[in-house]
């Protein structure tokens, strides 16, 4: 479904991603873990065209993403829950969610989709008329997540979706991710919370300073000594 080959990305003189290759198959949850600054966010940004690649290739559903405009990539059925939430601060919660459906040709189902998001995040229903900028950090994270779901994505990239969420919310978010997978949606998940990420993922990659150092079935990595030491704090 999504395939990255020998990708290099740099910011000026800083090489952030140094030749990674990975693939995500349809209907999988693939998790990308690694320390701060390893290049996880950069990888996701490159997939959705926010950051240009230096070399390598990314193909998605037969499309060459490095040759596709960022906004076109979204219309291919990709969604990206960005790190740092990036909600539209001066729009209301509901307007934010509606923006999520921007790329859909058929706008008739928006009402139903809103209901779905409000089912997932009842808190947002209460706050639907509040400006998103005044929401608490966790509430904004819910908006970002809900907004991504509004576009009926086939594939969803999530960058630390659990950051700043209460334990209960974290569990719910992971529940949602599993549910999405069960509905046939492909998920590429970046998480600091490696333990939970690995426990729901099918496969996983470990990224260290721009290179993939380990890959395999998530359950294997979860029990790998090295991984446990470095990322699970055990």
């Amino acid at each position, binding site marked *: 479904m999504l395939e990255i080959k020998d990708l290099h990305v740099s*910011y*000026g*003189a*800083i090489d952030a991603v140094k030749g990674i290759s990975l693939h995500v198959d349809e209907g999988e949850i693939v998790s990308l873990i690694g320390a701060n600054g390893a290049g996880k966010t950069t990888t996701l940004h490159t997939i959705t065209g926010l950051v240009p690649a230096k070399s390598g290739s990314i193909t998605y559903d037969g499309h060459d993403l490095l040759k596709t405009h960022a906004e076109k990539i979204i219309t291919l059925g990709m969604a990206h829950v960005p790190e*740092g*939430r*990036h*909600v539209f*601060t001066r729009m209301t919660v509901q307007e934010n969610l509606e923006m999520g459906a921007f790329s859909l040709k058929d706008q008739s189902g928006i009402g139903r989709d809103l209901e779905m998001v409000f089912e997932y995040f009842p808190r947002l229903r209460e706050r639907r008329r509040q400006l998103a*900028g005044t929401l608490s*950090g966790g509430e*904004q994270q819910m908006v970002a997540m809900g907004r991504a779901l509004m576009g009926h994505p086939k594939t969803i990239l999530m960058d630390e979706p659990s950051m700043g969420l209460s334990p209960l919310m974290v569990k719910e978010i992971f529940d949602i991710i599993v549910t999405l997978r069960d509905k046939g949606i492909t998920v590429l998940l970046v998480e600091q919370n490696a333990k939970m990420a690995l426990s729901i993922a099918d496969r996983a990659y470990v990224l260290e300073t721009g290179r993939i150092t380990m890959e395999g079935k998530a359950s294997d990595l979860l029990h790998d000594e090295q991984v446990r030491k470095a990322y699970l704090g055990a």
Partner: protein
Amino acid sequence: MKKTMLSAAQSYLVCALGVLAAFGVVAFLCETGLADYYIKGIMMTACIAIIMTTSLNLTIGVLGQLTLGCCGFQAIGAYVAALASKLMIANGMGLDPTTRFLITTLLGGVVACVFGILIGIPALRLHGDYLAIITLGFGEIIRVVIQNLKVAGGMGLDQGAAGQALIGIDRTANLYVVFWIMVVSVAVLFMFGRSRYGRAVKAIRDDEIAAGASGLNTTYLKVLVFAISAFFAGIAGGIFAQYIGSLNPSMAGWLNSINYVIMVVFGGMGSITGSIVSAVGLTILPELLRAFAEYRMLVYSVVLVLVMIFRPQGIFGSWEFSLPQVVNRLLLRNPKAAAQEKAASEAGSETSDESGAAVAAASAASKKEA
């Protein structure tokens, strides 16, 4: 701080020698007559521009607040100095011209500073483009008020129609004196920038809320910076009045203020040496372009756009030219040691190089969220 071969005292000495050398060049040109009225006029204009630009840089580059009203303060300083000089002469105060020049210029600075405080206290509650527009507004108000003050027009102090030029100001500005005023101004701004005040002001620029949460009285510091900028603008105005000999209210207009803002950005925000280079450069550039006659303003604007596109951080970025550092490099004959020294000073430099600035700008742009 930087590890250098020179001690702090030695560094200051090197700088002082550099300044003396610069003065030597100016004096040589003047004494030998190599510099005629034209060249001297340009040097004088450049000195005024340096004072304006470096002090404006404190507000725009270091504090990070855009103001478009600096010429309002310059005009206040100019009119105050001019009127004071006229009063002194009219009352037969037998001061020698240089003393009178210094007193009136200082007075211009002080009055401008007072206005700076009065305007700064309310205005600095606003930020960014709102502050820009409000300072522009204050500049325009100053212009209109001067324009309608009888005392500011005509020949004498109490006659003449409002809106007239104020003429017949004793032209006592002396290039040597002005040069040293410029040096002192720049030195004061430099010392200010490299002290706890400068650090605090930069902190406010980077994050005002965090600055408050670090115990800084942000309002006080912002007004202080504004007042210092206004003071030096007033000084520049006092010099201008007694160089040019006649004043017009339109000098307070926003278009003039914008000119100085252009100089600051062109030189590199936060870089004093950048401001100096750009003040001198942009004073000379239009003169060089005189050959292009009617197209010179076209050329000027194109040059400006091109610089902004290809060197958006200005010529110097936030880098400071430092004579002691150059000396250090020369002193280190051993190339290996020199390389090490260079690496150390670059890594340790509090000013960022080109890519550093670009990174900062990019990340500032991308991380604008809540």
